[in-house]
């Protein structure tokens, strides 16, 4: 960011100081500059992000209104503003709000994580749940649950350690004069299977009650999420999302290929490492608060990519899309099955897997999307 003259795509832009229209990037892209800093803005991407954010917010309000104790949107708004009656305020603010906020945060974190990883691996079908980063978090968290019972904080730290360790392991195992996307996928599938075996073993070693609790957690659930969970995921987003956005610029260069990126002054290996770990940390924190909610990380950036007609995925619209997806899935999981509530991961799994299969069916030999 500090040496804008090296940016190949900045070559055709206008004088600094004012928003200019780039001839290289097309009319929709604007470059905002201020001194040594510059920000490339792709207008449709920002617009899409705003629309999706609005939808996610609307879905959140709807989710606050619906449930075993249904109420009108006006009551929800009144309760949020602080002048509702005590009962609705309790239901909305104490019971439903933490859950909805957790859903939004988890969705955003997973989507950013997936978006980074997909561009890093040059493969739109890669996501933390497929290459084993989420599995690392799961195994570590189940270990914590089985051994120590596990409060929110210990589970979160366990998940973080597990997923970052797994990411490191994956990077080393897939490294061979650079990390190829396909090798990462296949090594990841093997690592996922191995970690899955360890998780299954831990489940057989636990009391049935603990096993049931761990099993619900493994499936990905937002039930009984409280303010500590909200704080965990929001702090994680506040710290990691800016890092992700800052790293997304070298990502554009990396898409030209590792050699070209290196030639253009990008330290490819270093950027890739940093990206992988940011992605892993985001997935870990999402997994820590809600369990491995399947397919969100994969599907959200893909939907955005399709809506933007194949342009590199902006992380902001992807995050908004992820938040929207998890909010919708949790609303379905919570209300659509009468008395019994499904874990949200089951819903995202059932909705997400067919979409992945559809993408696969359209992709070419190397598994890259069409």
């Amino acid at each position, binding site marked *: 960011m500090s040496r804008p003259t090296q940016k190949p795509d900045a070559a055709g832009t206008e004088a600094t100081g004012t928003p200019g229209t780039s001839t290289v990037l097309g009319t929709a892209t604007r470059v905002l500059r201020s001194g040594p800093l510059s920000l490339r803005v792709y207008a449709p991407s920002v617009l899409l992000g705003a629309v999706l954010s609005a939808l996610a917010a609307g879905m959140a309000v709807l989710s606050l209104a619906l449930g075993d104790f249904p109420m009108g949107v006006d009551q929800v708004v009144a309760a949020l503003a602080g002048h509702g009656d005590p009962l609705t305020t309790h239901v909305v603010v104490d019971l439903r709000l933490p859950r909805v906020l957790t859903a939004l945060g988890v969705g955003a974190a997973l989507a950013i994580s997936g978006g980074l990883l997909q561009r890093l691996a040059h493969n739109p079908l890669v996501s933390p749940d497929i290459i084993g980063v989420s599995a690392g978090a799961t195994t570590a968290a189940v270990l914590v649950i089985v051994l120590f019972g596990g409060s929110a904080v210990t589970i979160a730290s366990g998940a973080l350690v597990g997923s970052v360790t797994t990411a490191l392991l994956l990077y080393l195992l897939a490294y061979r004069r650079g990390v190829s996307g396909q090798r990462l996928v296949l090594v990841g599938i093997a690592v996922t299977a191995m970690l899955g075996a360890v998780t299954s073993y831990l489940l057989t070693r636990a009391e049935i009650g603990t096993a049931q609790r761990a099993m619900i957690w493994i499936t990905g659930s937002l039930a009984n999420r409280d303010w500590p969970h909200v704080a965990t995921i929001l702090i994680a987003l506040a710290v990691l999302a800016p890092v992700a956005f800052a790293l997304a610029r070298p990502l554009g260069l990396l898409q030209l290929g590792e050699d070209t990126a290196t030639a253009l002054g990008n330290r490819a290996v270093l950027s890739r490492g940093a990206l992988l770990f940011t992605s892993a940390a985001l997935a870990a924190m999402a997994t820590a608060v809600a369990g491995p909610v399947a397919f969100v990380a994969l599907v959200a950036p893909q939907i955005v990519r399709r809506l933007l007609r194949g342009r590199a995925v902006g992380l902001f619209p992807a995050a908004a899309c992820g938040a929207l997806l998890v909010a919708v899935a949790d609303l379905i999981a919570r209300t659509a099955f009468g008395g019994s509530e499904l874990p949200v991961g089951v819903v995202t799994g059932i909705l997400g897997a067919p979409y992945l299969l559809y993408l696969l069916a359209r992709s070419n*030999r190397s598994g890259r999307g069409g």
Partner: protein
Amino acid sequence: MADRTAEHTADRHATTRPEPRSARPPARTRTARAGGPGLLGSSAARSLGLVAALALLAGVAMASVLIGYQRFTLEEVQLAYAGYTGSDTDLVIRHLRVPRTLAGILVGAALGVAGVLVQGVTRNPLGDPGLLGINAGAALAAVLAISFFGATALLGYVGFAFVGAALAACVVHTVGSLGPDGSSPVKLALAGAAISALLGSLTSAIVLQDRATLDEYRFWVVGSLVGADSTSVPQALPFLAVGLVLALALARPLNVVALGDDLARSLGTRLWLVRAGSALAVVLLAGTATALAGPIGFVGVAVPHIARALVGPDHRWLLPWSAVLAPLLLLVADIVGRVVVRPEELQVGIVTALIGAPFFILLVRRRKVAGL
């Protein structure tokens, strides 16, 4: 398969390994180029080796009966059958150890042979019933049968397991081979992962509704030979026998399929027949194995590669060798699992995953797998 895939790449770029243009018929030439004959070159060496491997398997099977939480001697085993008294030792040997060992042999052979078939028919070096979602399909169907239809005996849910395995296999294979450029190892593996995740979600949705099913499920899903007893093993036998015979009958057609679809077709092979037969055999073998012992991963992917390194790519040798090597591996893994954390046990599915996943990664890192 790794070699053969590399060979296709070599064909395309026409750089590596000059073609040995000899007077030999094309099939033999291709086979010879495709990674060579393996360590055991001659038929005599392969036959002798197979006999030796069988003898080793018999030894390991004996060890599997003797070693465990309780250790037995050969006389005790002999007495349990010759002079049955109904003592604890007799009961453990006759109803636990021997069925468990037999189950290990059957499940191992089934998984090894299914692996060869999957890799042969899809020409995919990473083919494995587990990785392609077949186990997950069988698992979901078995859980459905147990939870909704109250099936308890193996015969009750093995039919469901077949249907589940078949459906999952069809979907994965269809998805993996759609698209502009057809099938590839990565696409198949991804499709398998997606289907496994989907079926896993459904399975957990079911088992979470019911504590008793979850309690059964968690011990079954790790993949263990403990559950196999003297009733389920004989019930599984006919299905496995049919699957194995079918697989052996397919050895020659599979050699032709390895040459590529076009060449195979021009040599008069009815491809659809070979594919349908293989699919049926894989479903019978992998479905029964999963119903008997739960999902056991990586045996199906690792053993064919080991066998190929020994005897080369000819399926007439590859299939019987895999049928012997896979049970050997599985029984050794089972014994290791019984010994390492005594007095507890490590289920065989855990041991194979811990051994098999590094093997798989090694395979992926080898340059020969095309496009990696």
